[in-house]
């Protein structure tokens, strides 16, 4: 075994490269975020007061769905082209490869989503004092969501029909992140202190980054072992 840091860099670089060579896959969840947020005023009416009240919840739920959609194919192409096979056979622990994979995925899906959110917040008339909490909660929250969704994606990768099944498995597990995340933004909008829910989200992020790769690794082995 040579230097683990070099291995880590090569693995991370490859994940980013593969995604960056297919830009549309990065852009699609962002457009999804934009379009679905634009549907809300059309469904609810354009009243600024109504939208402002609902904006934190809307932004959080749509971001959550965008993460879910982006995660569906997380392992699928690796499964189809046989690279997942090589990952499973590798002496590098599957925990590490899974962790790298999801982190890279978050860098190119959750993080851009977070950066796009202030724009949508403005369109939904959300008061600007909520923006910092929105950024912080989505940055931490999408990290949590990505790791949870990756467990579901790993469990369903060997199945012909993923999509809807993935959302059944994963959405109930999204509940705590949604509660803490949207509450953080709501409290900030009302001028209240939102550090408590943000701290809880941070704790969840640490926990899921450390623990979820175990479940992802187990799920990938099961998906391949049939």
């Amino acid at each position: 075994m040579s230097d683990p840091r070099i291995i880590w860099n090569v693995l991370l670089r490859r994940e980013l490269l593969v995604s960056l060579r297919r830009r549309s896959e990065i852009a699609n969840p962002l457009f999804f975020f934009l379009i679905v947020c634009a549907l809300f005023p059309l469904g609810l009416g354009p009243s600024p007061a109504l939208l402002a009240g609902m904006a934190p919840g809307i932004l959080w739920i749509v971001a959550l769905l965008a993460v879910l959609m982006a995660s569906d194919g997380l392992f699928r192409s690796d499964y189809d082209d046989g690279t997942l096979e090589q990952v499973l056979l590798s002496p590098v622990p599957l925990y590490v490869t899974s962790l790298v994979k999801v982190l890279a995925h978050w860098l190119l899906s959750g993080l851009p989503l977070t950066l796009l959110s202030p724009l949508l917040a403005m369109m939904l008339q959300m008061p600007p004092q909520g923006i910092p909490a929105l950024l912080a909660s989505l940055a931490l929250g999408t990290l949590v969501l990505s790791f949870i969704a990756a467990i579901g994606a790993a469990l369903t990768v060997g199945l012909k029909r993923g999509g809807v099944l993935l959302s059944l498995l994963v959405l109930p597990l999204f509940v705590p992140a949604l509660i803490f995340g949207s509450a953080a933004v709501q409290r900030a909008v009302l001028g209240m202190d939102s550090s408590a829910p943000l701290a809880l989200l941070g704790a969840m992020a640490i926990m899921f980054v450390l623990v979820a790769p175990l479940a992802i690794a187990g799920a990938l082995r099961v998906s391949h072992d049939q």
Partner: protein
Amino acid sequence: MWAWFHKWSSPRWFYQLSGTLLPWLAVISLAALIVGVAWGLMFVPPDYKQGNSFRIIYIHVPAAAVAMAGYLLMATAGAISLIWRIKLADMVLKCAAPIGAALTFLALVTGAIWGKPTWGTWWVWDARITSVLVLFFLYIGIIALYEAFDNKEAAGRASAILALVGAVNIPIIYWSVEWWYSLHQPASISFTGESSIHPQMLRPLLLTITGFYCFFGWVLLLKVRNEILHRERSTRWVRDLILSR
């Protein structure tokens, strides 16, 4: 100890052992349920605030409690299946999921029926009801995942992983829902304070809870035995068993 564990976990032994256990579970669960429900409905005095509508707790509370315990049982079976690769644990997990889901559904329905006279509406986003709803979703996920696999070996292990992930998340979900509820209704009145329940009301409740647990065990054993026969249908002992009938 280890040999005993392995012997007991072999489907054939389990089939024989569970056969002797079945009638006991059936008798206890039916007796406890009949006595508990009759006692609770007819002999316990009405609640001073809720009148007679509180009596639904004799179904609602045990259903919710056993639904929760059922999930933990499933996660435990999942862990056993993943660590020791015991087929029986797979079968327990698979068979417990629909029973647990049905009980969760029963808890939701009885909660709604209770809600109508109490709050004047069928559905309230109360912390407990919401938690039970999420538990129902978790059960649905397990069943959906199991059914999606053609290979039952993989189905069992995948569901086991999901059940474990769910079990780790349940405390976080419950706690976050409580927190969410307190945030939006800081001065709400709690209706279901079991600690303050009158002993006269409690005794039949304990009976129906026992009844529900035994009922769960009874139905689970029936389903697992069925599953064993199905999976081991090509083995000699199952053929002998069928021929001897």
